[in-house]
């Protein structure tokens, strides 16, 4: 037997070997494989590249008397959003406070959201502030203001036997709407604050009926739409003006085309007109068009900002491959044993890998979106396209959301890679549950119903975080995935995706802890 020697004591002492050190080790692992860093760059380039292709191929022009001209820019409402503001308006000036009361005894409306009633508007310019109380085709009495706001009043349809009394009073910048079935018992519907309303405004009656929009085909390949103008006619009597109205002549105007009650010549578009019965004093007002927010998609003629992010799916594929490789390459080489020998806390190793994956993918998504959005927006505008304006917060959500989308996809890929321990299988599976449903649902492959279910249940629901288009209940449109409308709200859809990723990560942690490596 050998002589006894004093036990050896390690001279190499790490300051600490906690989670931050593990995180640093995993990040060192990730950044030192050149192929993976190049992969992140490729993900950015693909995301931006697809956006550029799409933007370059998207042109819009309008024909004028001397060939193509730049299209007029659509009106923007007080809230900053694009609006539709062409309706038939029978009006006169009101200075200071006042009110208008009418009885609607008849309304012939082809569209559910055809509307007629009383309105106070800051001039006849398009996009100006307003508040209105109206009857509608099938949605009862409503009070609406500044395009996006909508409150319900009395339900039910209007007829000569079941008339509706409407009243709108102005007091400073406050407009209050009332309705009644008999003209004596009034119910307050709501009030609107129209900031910056000048002393003199336009007050009167209006009628509008939005275009009838139909999808061109059903089922596979649906998504195109055709629209044709409609008009609604309302009978309004017992018209009473109070306060500082001139009380003299009524002027009819169509949208921003003042003084042309019969509509603008050869241009096919909204029309309207009005008559006053000399005997009864009752008005008949006919109008087409709408006073409402502009809705994107097939029915609209603008482009959504998220159009610039169409390439996200390509970046996501790359990130999924990288997330998978981050663990399956270790299984393939046997490096996982080295990793778990250095850090025996297996769940902590998985957590550190998830953080590194998520961080790298998030940065990739944010950079890609921050480049693609301004670049492609510029090209789209140069090509004559109009973009639906979005607020700063929405734009931030799109950029951060794209990063989060890639981050969660990368974590899911890491988890599935840990579960399957095979790169090819894991990549295929993750792409099959994220990118595939997204493409099936949004590229008019599947009908609307199944598409919406896919985007509610599958991890592809997370793409909703990129939606800037808003759904307005007071506007009938095709709020379908093909048109860029997800069935879930942006963060709700993202939460569905997070749920799937959390599930996969939990299972991965459980298996990693239980299995021999």
């Amino acid at each position, binding site marked *: *037997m*050998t*002589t*006894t*020697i*004093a*036990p*050896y*004591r*390690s*001279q*190499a*002492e*790490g*300051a*600490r*070997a*906690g989670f931050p*050190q*593990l995180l*640093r*080790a*995993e990040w*060192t*692992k990730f950044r*030192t*494989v*050149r*192929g993976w860093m190049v992969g992140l760059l490729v993900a950015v380039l693909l995301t931006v590249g697809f956006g550029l292709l799409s933007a370059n191929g998207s042109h819009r022009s309008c024909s004028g008397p001397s060939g193509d001209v730049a299209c007029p820019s659509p009106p923007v409402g007080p809230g900053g959003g694009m609006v539709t503001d062409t309706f038939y308006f029978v009006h006169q000036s009101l200075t200071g406070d006042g009110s208008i009361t009418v009885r609607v005894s008849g309304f012939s409306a082809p569209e559910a959201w055809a509307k007629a009633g009383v309105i106070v508007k800051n001039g006849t310019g398009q996009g100006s502030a307003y508040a209105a109380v109206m009857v509608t085709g099938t949605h009862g009495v409503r009070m609406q203001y500044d395009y996006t706001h909508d409150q319900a009043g009395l339900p039910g349809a209007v007829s000569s036997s079941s008339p509706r009394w409407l009243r709108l009073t102005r007091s400073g910048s406050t407009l209050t709407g009332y309705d009644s079935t008999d003209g004596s018992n009034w119910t307050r519907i709501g009030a609107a604050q129209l900031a910056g309303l000048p002393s003199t405004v336009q007050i009167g009656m209006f009628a509008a009926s939005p275009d009838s929009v139909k999808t061109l085909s059903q089922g596979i390949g649906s998504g195109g739409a055709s629209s044709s103008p409609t008009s609604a006619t309302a009978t309004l009597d017992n018209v009473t003006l109070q306060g500082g109205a001139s009380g003299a002549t009524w002027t009819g105007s169509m949208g921003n085309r003042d003084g042309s009650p019969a509509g603008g010549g050869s241009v096919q578009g909204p029309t309207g007109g009005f008559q006053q019965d000399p005997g009864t004093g009752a008005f008949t007002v006919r109008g087409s068009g709408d006073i409402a927010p502009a809705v994107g998609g097939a029915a609209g003629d603008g482009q959504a900002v998220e159009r610039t992010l169409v390439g996200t799916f390509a970046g996501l594929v790359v990130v999924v491959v990288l997330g998978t490789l981050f663990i399956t*390459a*270790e299984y393939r*080489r*046997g*490096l996982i*044993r*080295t*990793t*778990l*020998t*250095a*850090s*025996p*806390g297996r769940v902590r190793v998985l957590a550190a890998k998830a953080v590194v994956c998520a961080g790298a993918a998030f940065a990739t998504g944010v950079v890609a979106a921050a480049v693609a959005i301004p670049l492609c927006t510029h090209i789209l505008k140069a090509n004559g396209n109009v973009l639906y304006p979005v607020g700063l917060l929405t734009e931030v959500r799109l950029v951060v959301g794209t990063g989060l989308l890639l981050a969660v996809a990368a974590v899911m890929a890491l988890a599935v890679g840990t579960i399957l321990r095979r790169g090819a299988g894991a990549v295929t599976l993750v792409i099959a549950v994220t990118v595939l449903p997204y493409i099936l649902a949004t590229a008019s492959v599947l009908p609307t119903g199944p598409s919406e279910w896919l985007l509610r249940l599958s991890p592809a629901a997370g793409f909703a975080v990129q939606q800037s288009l808003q759904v307005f209940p007071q506007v009938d449109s095709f709020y379908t995935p093909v048109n860029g409308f997800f069935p879930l709200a942006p963060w709700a859809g993202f939460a569905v995706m997070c749920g799937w990723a959390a599930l996969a990560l939990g299972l991965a942690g459980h298996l990693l802890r239980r299995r*021999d*490596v």
Partner: protein
Amino acid sequence: MIPAMEATIAVTGLRKRFGPTQALDDLSFTVTPGQVTGFVGPNGAGKSTTMRVVLGLDTPDAGRALIGGHEYRTLKHPLSHVGALLDAAALQPGRTARNHLLWLAHSQGLGARRVDEVIRLAGLETAARRRAGGYSLGMRQRLGIAAAMLGDPPVLMLDEPFNGLDPEGIVWMRGLLGSLAAQGRAVLVSSHLMSELQDTADHLLVLGRGRVIADTSVRELVAAASGDRVTLRTSERSAVMTLLARAGAVVASTDRETLTVSGLAAERIVALLTADGVPFSEVSAHRATLEEAYMELTRDAVEFRGAGARSGSTERADGSSAEEVVR
């Protein structure tokens, strides 16, 4: 601060089954500091499985493995307690050797300075910034040693570290293992080639079918295997064999000119041959190689098992011997 810890590997009653195979079958042993312990046995004997269990990578069905009294999974700075080389090929090909060591160092809270130290220790200074994918097996073994030495651990566990080394590398590895043991570390080195452990291992753990067949010091083992045999070189083979057999010795011919004699001391053999005038060129006390000692040991083990399993294997083992025995 790394707490002072006994430099031992203690394994008690390990059992591990993979499907129909009982990989570890009530395995118990202790690896003590200050010496190189050879961990030998045929392929499939359970060497690698044991190492994985010790490192907490595989969970045993029964029994436990402790490093200085602690389970591996509870160690805070594991690489400062145990340095392991399981598979030299376990590398990401696109990552440089230095970066491979760097992430390992970071996981232990160690810095780049320690990385450069172990690179020097393993003799990889010129190749460290090249991708590991282009490394030869010998260079990978050196990188594996560098990784095992990162935490300057009191316990080292190396699986087949001689594989793929060139002669110079083998000499280097032997010297390194010896000096690490001399510093008071416990060094466990597995190998399936005895010749690699010759002049390296102080102690031998022989595994067969998941059990410890022998746990012995190399010096005693070789002495026992050498016996009192004498090696004799002569051109008159048959005359010598007849003469010595008549004197009571057992003579076996190893090759055309060499005989192995047992039962007679060297001086007595010289006297007998000289008296009869039989020419010989060399008479020396036989010293068994580690390989021979190992073969003898495992043959006994085979016989031991064979006696229990099926009778007649004893004869088969003797009959397969290439030695020509004359009594």
